[in-house]
């Protein structure tokens, strides 16, 4: 049975990770090789399973593998069971494929780091957790992978945690993800309370019979979860700081795979969102806000990785937007997710390559004219660039265009608003990505004296090249004959493309989009080619620019709304605990001591006063008896 192979997808990297962590320094020599091999084997298993799926008729492609009964209490029955269907296989191939490339890249990129073995252990752990996330057949199994990737992300962001800011960034990511996990927890609880099950299949079956209110509640909770993991508004603030991790991590976790888990969650839960219009509306709103938010932030970043991170946020906004547009959108969300996986991972690796040649400098204002020194990096990065801004026939053109079209066709004022947001976002994307290209690769050199830019070794540029090829051809392949849409149909119940009335014909939409992209490019060219670029960010800028540079005050807002009141609350409660609650306890003790001290005063030590007291007491008793017996 092919389905019995599913578990090996997860088991191989998990086992490898355990070996690398337990073996300690002894594994330093071969740790990176084992890690890469594990990831590649997992990819091999995934590819084999994919070919097996292709050989099956459509309705028999989904496979499940029950491992054991995980939790079984009363009616709460959760199996450790894996589900490989058309949706999860896309992710399996993306995770293990891109993952393996990034493993290979990291062999060289991390070769000078003493802890390279540990790095590969974490990467393997991440691959295993991420695969569990997409392969779990119930929300609770997904939850394990969901937190597992959060843990791996935490470990990898804080890989160089001897630097306090990096450690803080890791903590921030974990905590904000936990806010999202709160949503996932509650979604599972609501689902169990109302439907008596937490498995995807069970909920899909029960959803039509469930009230819209319940489904909306579940949907909103899932949206919170997705927002936390995918850095969507309002839980987006951690992603920029997460760039503290080594660059391959940013490429794998914070661009290609983990951050797209939210999109996976929404797509997987299509049966809930399709039946809960309010939740769906919130999804598109979150998506639209984030795609603009990320794009705006991206325009003012001088740190190449943070610029790319902002771009990631924005592109995931596109995916969320698409996923919120209902049955037509899911396939496009996944398509953009896959193409984005190629070009964004490629560009991050390119950024890593540039940093590698520039003494880990990340400030783009200190780059310039690197085209001549790093030709391969320039070409691969450039292909990714063309893909992300949506130039035909590169991958991003197909996937993003579909989303813009779907948004415009959503109907009524909603469609126009969403469509224009998506179009405006495309323009901004063109602007900030062109800016990145110009600042990094063209113009004059603005390096520090000790920088000696050079092309990276083959182990680094080969993965970049493969990803670049993916950025070129993937979009075309996915859309040829609507291949991906048809592939995903059994899972997301996607209807024929174009079922909705079309606001504008597709060719016109593409035309408008391309025009806007061109405008974006031209503005960037005017600002950064025509005018000289300074190697420090200019200070005399408008207030708006300053706000954008501070990430639209996202951290300030979080601090003002949550952190400082939280700290104040903690301090107050500690004082209350000491003074009031423990005070009451000590008060009882003090009362006992006090009354003792008071009574002690009657013990004068004078025999005569004692005898007088005895006399009075005896008289009182006699009197008492007399009164009672009267």
């Amino acid at each position, binding site marked *: 049975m092919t389905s019995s192979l599913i578990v090996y997808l997860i088991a191989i990297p998990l086992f490898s990770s355990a070996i690398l*962590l337990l073996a300690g320094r002894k594994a330093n020599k071969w740790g990176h090789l084992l890690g890469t091999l594990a990831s590649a084997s997992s990819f091999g298993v995934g590819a084999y399973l994919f070919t097996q799926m292709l050989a099956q008729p459509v309705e028999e492609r989904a496979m499940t593998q029950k491992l*054991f009964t*995980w*939790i*079984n*209490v*009363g*009616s*709460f029955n959760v199996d*450790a069971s894996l589900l490989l269907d058309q949706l999860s296989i896309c992710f399996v191939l993306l995770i293990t494929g891109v993952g393996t490339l990034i493993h290979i890249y990291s062999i060289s990129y991390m070769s000078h780091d003493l802890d390279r073995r540990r790095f590969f252990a974490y990467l393997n752990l991440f691959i295993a957790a991420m695969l569990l996330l997409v392969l779990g057949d119930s929300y*609770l199994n997904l*939850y*394990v992978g*969901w*937190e*597992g990737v959060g*843990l791996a992300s935490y470990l990898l962001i*804080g890989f160089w*945690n*001897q*630097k*306090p800011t990096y*450690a*803080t960034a*890791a*903590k921030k990511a*974990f*905590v904000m993800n*936990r*806010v999202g*996990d*709160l949503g996932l*927890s*509650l979604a*599972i*609880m609501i689902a*169990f*309370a*109302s*439907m*008596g*099950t937490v*498995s995807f*299949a*069970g*909920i899909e*079956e*029960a959803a039509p019979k469930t009230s819209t209110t*319940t489904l909306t509640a579940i949907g909103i909770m899932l949206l919170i979860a997705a927002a936390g993991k995918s850095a969507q508004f309002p839980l987006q603030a951690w992603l920029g700081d997460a760039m503290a991790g080594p660059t391959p991590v940013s490429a794998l976790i914070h661009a290609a795979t983990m951050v797209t888990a939210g999109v996976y969650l929404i797509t997987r839960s299509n049966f809930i969102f399709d039946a809960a219009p309010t939740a769906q509306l919130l999804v598109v709103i979150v998506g639209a806000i984030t795609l603009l938010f990320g794009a705006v932030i991206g325009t003012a970043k001088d740190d190449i990785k943070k610029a790319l991170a902002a771009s990631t946020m924005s592109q995931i906004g596109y995916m969320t937007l698409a996923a919120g547009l209902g049955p037509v959108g899911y396939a496009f969300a996944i398509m953009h997710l896959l193409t984005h996986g190629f070009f964004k991972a490629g560009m991050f690796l390119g950024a890593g390559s540039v940093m590698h040649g520039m003494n880990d400098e990340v400030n783009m204002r200190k780059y310039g004219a690197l085209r001549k020194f790093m030709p391969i990096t320039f070409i691969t990065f450039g292909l990714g660039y063309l893909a992300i801004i949506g130039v035909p026939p590169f991958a991003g053109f197909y996937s993003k265009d579909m989303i813009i079209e779907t948004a415009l066709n959503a109907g009524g004022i909603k469609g126009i608003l969403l469509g224009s947001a998506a179009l405006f976002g495309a323009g901004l994307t063109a602007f900030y990505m062109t800016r990145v290209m110009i600042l990094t690769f063209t113009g004059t050199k603005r390096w520090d004296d000790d920088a000696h830019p050079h092309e990276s070794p083959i182990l680094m540029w080969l993965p970049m090249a493969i990803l670049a090829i993916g950025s070129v051809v993937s979009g075309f392949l996915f859309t040829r004959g609507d291949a991906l849409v048809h592939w995903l149909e059994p899972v997301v119940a996607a209807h024929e493309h174009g079922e909705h009335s079309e606001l504008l014909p597709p060719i016109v939409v593409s035309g408008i989009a391309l025009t806007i992209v061109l405008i974006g490019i031209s503005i960037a060219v005017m600002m950064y080619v025509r005018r000289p670029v300074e190697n420090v960010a200019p200070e005399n800028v408008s207030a708006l620019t300053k706000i954008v540079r501070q990430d639209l005050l996202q951290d300030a807002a979080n601090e003002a709304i949550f952190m400082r009141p939280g700290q104040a*609350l*903690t*301090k107050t*409660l*500690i004082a209350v*605990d000491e003074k009031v*609650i*423990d005070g*009451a*306890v000590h008060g009882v*003790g003090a009362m006992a001591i006090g009354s003792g001290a008071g009574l002690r005063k009657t013990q004068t030590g004078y025999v005569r006063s004692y005898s007088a007291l005895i006399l009075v007491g005896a008289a009182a008793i006699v009197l008492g008896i007399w009164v009672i017996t009267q």
Partner: protein
Amino acid sequence: MTINWISLTALLPLIGAVLLATLPKGAELRAKQFAFGATLVTAASAIAMAVQFQRDNTDLQFVEVRSWIPSFGINYAVGIDGIALVLILMSVILAPIVILAGWNEAQGGRWSVKTFYILILVLETMMIGVFSATDVFLFYVIFEAMLVPVYFLIGGYGTGERSAAAVKFLLYSLFGGLLMLASIIALYVMSGDQGGHTFDLAKLAKLEMSSTTQNFLFLGFFIAFAIKAPLWPFHTWLPDAAQSATSGTSVLLLGVLDKVGTFGMIRYCLTLFPEASKTFTPVIIVLAVISIIYGAILAIGQKDLKRLIAFTSISHFGFITMGIFAMTSQSQSGATLYMFNHGFSTAALFIVGGWMIARRGSSTISEFGGLQRVTPVMAWCFFLAGMSSLALPGLSSFVSEFLVLVGTYTRYPVAAIIATVGIILAALYILIPVQRALHGPTTPGNENLPDLNLREKIAIAPVLAAIIALGFYPAPLLNVINPAAIHVNSQLGFTDPVPTVEGK
């Protein structure tokens, strides 16, 4: 000849303690080895008992009744169900680990090393007894007698203001115990009016009493257990005690002794006073939710590592209490599983924390820093223990915490939603000390701290292994707990809320 497994298991450490007392005074190493051996034998005996346990049988098993003080109807009566078995197993597994982990912590005490281990062995006997007693009087006697060894362990071998902490612990617990004693006497008197004086739990459970009486007697028991557990606002003794006690004592105190409180709630409050339990449930759920949030917030603000762990426990005990009184299958089973898991994750935190403190000579968190680079193995153990404390999915505590939450949600959704906020706070209270102690540059004075030695690795390995293994495969424990937990609820007449829509 049949073996009385409970009595045998309970007697083994006591015999060990008596033999230990005959050892000559200077033989510290032998005392340690002997005590360790005694706890291992006890653990083996308990495991042998567990193997024979019939898990689908909801009656008490291994029952043994002997007349003790016949004129008052007092018996030596023991017997266990799934809940008690799990807690006994937890106690006897933790005892040798505590001894091995805290190999040198008895030095510097007020009394000899030998006395330390005698106290621990005596305590272990009482731990087994308190979980298996089915005679209320016997339970009460052990419940109170347990305070004595702990009092000496804190006051004699602790650090800092150990005497004050020990006295606070003793008086606070004694206060609760006396309230319980009053209730027990009332029960005894009533039993005399209804067919003969007895302290037998099963017979007392059938007493007829007015709802007012039941409410008052319930409170007597409940406050005693709420102090023990500890539930907000009866918690203030715990941080002081944990801060002053050695880490081994803290493990036994928080990991095992405090479970007597939550165990008592199931075994005595629910069984003896079903109606009163229902009456007070709303209040108790509110207190539990407050404990969860309050304990977590206070943990976030602590500067002392041991106090921090103590406050996290207050939060966790809130979860357990909430699970017990939500009275659904999931929450009840989850609560018992939580007791077990909390024993292990707190043990891991205290043990590794204790090593860190012993090496650094201070329990203030800010004195640490950068331990990840200096002592990687120790840092990893602490991190894993922390992850278990914040209930990371895949680790054992997640299963129990989620069961409690999901079970509570089906009956008290609002309480469950508020309690779920606790998972965010948990991330903060674990990651803040992790960052301060393990990450960042190495604080001066920490450069040469030694990493874990072989003994310490052997001590912590089973704890961490259990945390991970039971997270992926909790069935062995759940299969034992489920019948007992569902039995508890069904006796009270509770059935699980039925979902509005039947799914697959």
